[in-house]
């Protein structure tokens, strides 16, 4: 049963008519409810007895059971006061006490209203001539109501039969004047009594729906007719049909009221208490009233004034803060406090000016409508406040029931550790085995019990123990992750991963997870760890993001200074890449690892995250303060393991020069071609783009022949499957167009074959292409390349030199992100020429420099496919390229190297070669829709056998590489790495960062950052 609280059943009893919908559920709910009951009887004294009764109870049926249950609750409720509630018989007598709100009368009209709605329809019927019809109606009505009363064994089918069908009159929604809904309904009723020719069946005004009434009738015309002349219905008002499916919703009673049970938390909707948390003390469903307990907001002075007849300022200037009512204080102010015993319950209340107080709380009778009971999530502060002495255990339970009511579906999952919080087996621990609707099968931890036990969801609470790593999935702290450090009942104290601070959450709001999230990391344009410029021209790194402000570690060396700044106090983000000189005058740039050699942070070491005005921000994960950031003068550091950033800086410089040079000549570009050993890498049109989309189409001038960009001319930058990226001549802009939209496509059929086998054939092509480069380079690079240089190259290049331990650097094909155009430019200025003091293993930088290789990318880092069939292209020959100059063994390095270039994507690798079995591809054949398929086999000529997913028989077709496009994986897809040193390795894509994918490898669990281009979605078998 959805809301299996026994309270509800109480409601049912009182209000059975309304429970039509819920009736059938009751049967299922019985079991659960029985167990759930002891929620209210936490006091041990009663409990034992109660439990005995429990067993007896199984034998009782129907009404008896109910009576007892209600009685029992009654007993528990007032147990505090009634020390003698110790035998069942006595309780029986107390049944009546339930009704402790005794001030009837006041609300009668309210209640009447509800009935009035029903009555007119009956009367209307009476007026109808069609007796037979009337008979049927009456019969139906009676059938229905009897059904309600004895309908415990109603089946689904019977229930279904009662639902409106197409044959029944329809429900129409009519717009009327706001605030006159009831009046309109009554008018309609009257009208229908007066005039027998009206063919409407009923008119309903719903309290919660303003501006509309419902009219039941067969035809729209009937409704219009009836509404004609009514003052509150505009003649122009449209009459809308309520779809059959929604008809029941119109009249079904909101479960809201049913949810209201004692001890649930609610919030006030109106008045000075608006928004305040309150606890339900008693519910009167008949009068739609509840008594709630609140922390009073009473201005005693004002109250005193009022009582003494002094002038009371009419207008309240402020809302008094919530404070417990203190009798002594009140007496001091000469406020008369009466102590009165409630005649029904025997409870004592302090009465002041008609207000009821008890234990400092205000007891207030409210209309159900003026409180909201949905999705109440009391905060800890609020609960804390409510927890007055003697209230503790109670408070816990109350919040529990509220929490449980807010539980989402599928709250429990197999494997969850749970603890029983109610019933006979309270405190039993176990693991969830199976979940069926509300019933959870639990494998108990204790031995000697049945293998699994079934519990109602409400009896269980998730269980965590200190040390578990969890994620908060709902509530205020949603999204945070951390480790449980303490368990207090169903409240957990978690050490947040990000802030290393305590968070208090309900166990219910948490799932076990190994995921580590940062929580809030960004406000506006500013993100955690950004370098920002502040108002007063100071600057700093954001080390923590709070709900409305940032903590910034200011760029003041020597002594850490942290300030809290608001969003508006931040002027801008500082993104300019600068460099600084370290103690030994080496250039330090971002991502270089430096060691602090003086000052309080001496000995710390870590990569430089930001540089500004000669001040470095170093990130040292072992540094616990300031999120690991250390602010230090560049002069107080020495670079460790050689700078890698240099090279990217050079790269940037070169861009600049190439910018200039682009219009004149392309000396930079030509240089590489003069280096014969490097044959293959010279030019692939465009590095990873080239790698993938290498295609003779690349660099061709084309014209777009169809599509929205029809008529534009441009140069092909990249070919990806059936898509082509074209740089438009007219607008310095790159657009993506379909291949078939391009005019000059004559050559696309051949490229693959050619490139696959043709290192040789490839080379001759170059001269012809060379002229293109000067033009092409600058255009592409400003956009794309610097990004890569900045982001990737340095890191990778750095890997071999430094004692880096970033395993993911290794074999990261993302190195291709470096544009070949850029490489040639670099050689003379290679960073490794710079003396790299203590550059780890790389003691003989000469080994690199001599070669003048532009591509210093780490040895293992950019393993790219080169073509086996063209050994001539392999630069193995001349030197034994010592990537690792200083092995621990201390062998001297062989100077010189060459082969590094081989790392870059070789031309031989057309797209075809990337394909591999088991990856998902889109097969796009001319004149056909594209199909998703799985590559089963890659043939010698590059074409692939693809089994089409869509075809029922998994038809296998052979497709040319040009017809295939790899399906790009999305986050958390299984992937296969198509290229690089990890080619063929499978993993899971756990995140995407721009053009990089973060991949967790299946076999080693290592996390790697790889270019998205080489990742393919793996077919799920």
């Amino acid at each position: 049963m959805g809301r299996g609280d026994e309270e509800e059943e109480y409601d049912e009893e009182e209000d059975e008519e309304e429970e039509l919908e819920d009736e059938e559920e009751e049967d299922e709910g019985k079991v659960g409810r029985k167990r759930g009951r002891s929620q209210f009887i936490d006091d041990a004294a009663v409990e034992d007895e109660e439990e005995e009764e429990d067993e007896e109870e199984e034998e009782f049926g129907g009404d008896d059971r109910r009576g007892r249950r209600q009685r029992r609750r009654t007993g528990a409720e007032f147990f505090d006061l009634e020390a003698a509630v110790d035998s069942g018989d006595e309780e029986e007598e107390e049944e009546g006490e339930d009704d402790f709100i005794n001030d009837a009368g006041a609300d009668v009209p309210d209640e009447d209203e509800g009935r009035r709605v029903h009555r007119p329809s009956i009367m209307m019927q009476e007026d109808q001539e069609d007796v037979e019809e009337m008979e049927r109606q009456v019969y139906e009505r009676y059938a229905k109501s009897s059904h309600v009363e004895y309908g415990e064994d109603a089946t689904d089918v019977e229930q279904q039969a009662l639902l409106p069908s197409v044959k029944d009159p329809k429900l129409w929604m009519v717009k009327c004047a706001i605030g006159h809904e009831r009046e309109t309904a009554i008018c309609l009723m009257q009208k229908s009594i007066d005039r027998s020719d009206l063919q409407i069946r009923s008119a309903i005004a719903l309290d919660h729906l303003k501006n509309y009434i419902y009219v039941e009738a067969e035809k729209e015309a009937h409704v219009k007719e009836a509404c004609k002349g009514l003052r509150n219905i505009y003649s122009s008002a449209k009459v809308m049909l309520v779809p059959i499916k929604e008809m029941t919703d119109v009249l079904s009673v909101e479960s809201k009221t049913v949810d209201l049970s004692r001890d649930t938390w609610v919030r006030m909707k109106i008045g000075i208490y608006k928004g305040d948390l309150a606890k339900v003390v008693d519910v009167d469903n008949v009068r739609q009233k509840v008594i709630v307990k609140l922390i009073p907001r009473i201005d005693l002075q004002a109250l005193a004034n009022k009582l003494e007849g002094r002038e009371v300022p009419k207008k309240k200037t402020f809302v008094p803060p919530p404070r417990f009512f203190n009798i002594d204080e009140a007496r001091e102010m000469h406020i008369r406090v009466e102590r009165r015993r409630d005649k029904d319950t025997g409870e004592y209340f302090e009465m002041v000016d008609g207000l009821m107080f008890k234990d400092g709380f205000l007891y207030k009778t409210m209309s159900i409508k003026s409180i909201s009971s949905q999705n109440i999530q009391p905060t800890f502060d609020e609960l804390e406040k409510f927890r007055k002495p003697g209230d503790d255990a109670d408070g816990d339970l109350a919040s529990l029931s509220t929490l449980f009511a807010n539980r989402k579906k599928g709250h429990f999952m197999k494997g969850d550790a749970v603890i029983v919080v109610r019933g006979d087996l309270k405190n039993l621990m176990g693991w969830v085995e199976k979940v069926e609707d509300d019933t959870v099968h639990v494998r108990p931890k204790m031995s000697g019990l049945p293998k699994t036990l079934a519990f109602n969801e409400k009896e269980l609470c998730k269980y965590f123990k200190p040390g578990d790593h969890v994620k908060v999935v709902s509530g205020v702290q949603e999204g945070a992750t951390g480790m449980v450090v303490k368990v207090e009942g169903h409240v957990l104290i978690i050490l947040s991963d990000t802030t290393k601070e305590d968070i208090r959450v309900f166990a219910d709001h948490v799932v076990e997870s190994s995921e580590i999230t940062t929580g809030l990391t960004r406000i506006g344009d500013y993100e955690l760890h950004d370098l920002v410029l502040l108002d007063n021209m100071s600057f700093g790194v954001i080390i923590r993001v709070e709900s409305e402000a940032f903590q910034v570690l200011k760029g003041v060396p020597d002594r850490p200074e942290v300030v809290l700044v608001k969003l508006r106090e931040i002027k801008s983000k500082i993104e300019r890449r600068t460099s600084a000189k370290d103690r030994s005058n080496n250039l330090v740039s971002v991502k270089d690892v430096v060691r602090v050699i003086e000052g309080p942070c001496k000995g710390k070491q870590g990569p430089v995250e930001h540089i500004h005005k000669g001040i470095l921000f170093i990130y040292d994960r072992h540094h616990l303060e300031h999120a690991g950031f250390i602010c230090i003068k560049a002069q107080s550091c020495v670079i460790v393991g050689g700078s890698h950033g240099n090279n990217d800086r050079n790269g940037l410089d070169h861009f600049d020069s190439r910018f200039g040079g682009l219009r004149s000549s392309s000396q930079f570009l030509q240089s590489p071609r003069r280096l014969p050993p490097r044959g293959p890498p010279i030019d692939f049109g465009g590095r990873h783009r080239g790698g993938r989309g290498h295609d003779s189409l690349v660099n061709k001038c084309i014209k777009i022949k169809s599509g929205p960009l029809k008529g534009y001319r441009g140069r092909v930058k990249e070919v990806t499957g059936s898509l082509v990226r074209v740089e438009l001549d007219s607008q310095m802009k790159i657009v993506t167009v379909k291949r078939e939209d391009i005019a000059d496509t004559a050559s696309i059929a051949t490229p693959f074959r050619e490139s696959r086998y043709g290192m040789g054939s490839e080379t001759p092509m170059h001269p012809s292409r060379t002229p293109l480069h000067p033009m092409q380079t600058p255009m592409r690079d400003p956009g794309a390349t610097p990004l890569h240089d900045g982001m990737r190259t340095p890191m990778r290049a750095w890997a071999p030199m430094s004692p880096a331990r970033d395993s993911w650097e290794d074999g990261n094909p993302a190195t291709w992100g470096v544009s070949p155009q850029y490489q040639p430019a670099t050689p003379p200025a290679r960073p490794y020429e710079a003396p790299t003091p203590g550059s780890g293993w790389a003691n003989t930088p000469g080994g690199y420099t001599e070669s003048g290789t532009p591509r210093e990318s780490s040895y293992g880092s950019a393993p790219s496919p080169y073509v086996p069939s063209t050994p001539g292209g392999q630069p193995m020959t001349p030197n034994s390229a010592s990537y690792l100059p200083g092995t621990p063994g201390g062998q001297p390095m062989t100077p010189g190297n060459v082969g590094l270039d081989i790392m870059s994507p070789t031309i031989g690798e057309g797209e075809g070669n990337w394909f591999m079995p088991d990856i998902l591809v889109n097969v796009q054949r001319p004149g056909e829709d594209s199909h998703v398929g799985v590559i089963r086999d890659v043939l010698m000529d590059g074409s692939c056998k693809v089994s089409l997913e869509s075809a029922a028989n998994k038809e296998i077709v052979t497709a040319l590489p040009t017809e295939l496009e790899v399906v790009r994986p999305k986050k958390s897809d299984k992937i296969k790495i198509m290229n690089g040193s990890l080619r063929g390795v499978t993993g899971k894509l756990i995140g995407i960062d721009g053009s990089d994918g973060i991949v967790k490898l299946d076999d080693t669990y290592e996390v790697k950052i790889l270019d998205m281009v080489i990742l393919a979605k793996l077919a799920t078998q």
Partner: protein
Amino acid sequence: MSGEEEENAAELKIGEEFLRAKCLMNCEVALILDRKYEQLQQLSDDPTNQISQVFEKSMQYVKRFSRYKNQDAVRQVREILSRYQLAEFELCVLGNLCPETVEEAIAMVPSIKRKGRIHEDDAIEKMLNDLSLIKKFE
């Protein structure tokens, strides 16, 4: 996660792989790392730049928390402890923490009392005495 397979060193649930692996006491690690550090030193003037932070931290740690400095003593400790049918892990915890009383030893390595092995308090006490003797005569 079924919960039952969860690791718990107190119950010697550290995974098959580690259970079979050879554990090292801090003092042993100190010797190993020292030697390695010397090697590195010979190869380069400034070995600090070659060693990883993990190495450095580990070395500092084991030096600080080695109960026995002397190589012979270290060997003896292992020899003595290995007479008591301890699991590698237990052996090293005892060697690292050097509990002084039987009670303390059991608190540190609860598994020596469980598992149905015969570890009389007397035996434990003797073991602890032996250990402290080594320390004394080191």
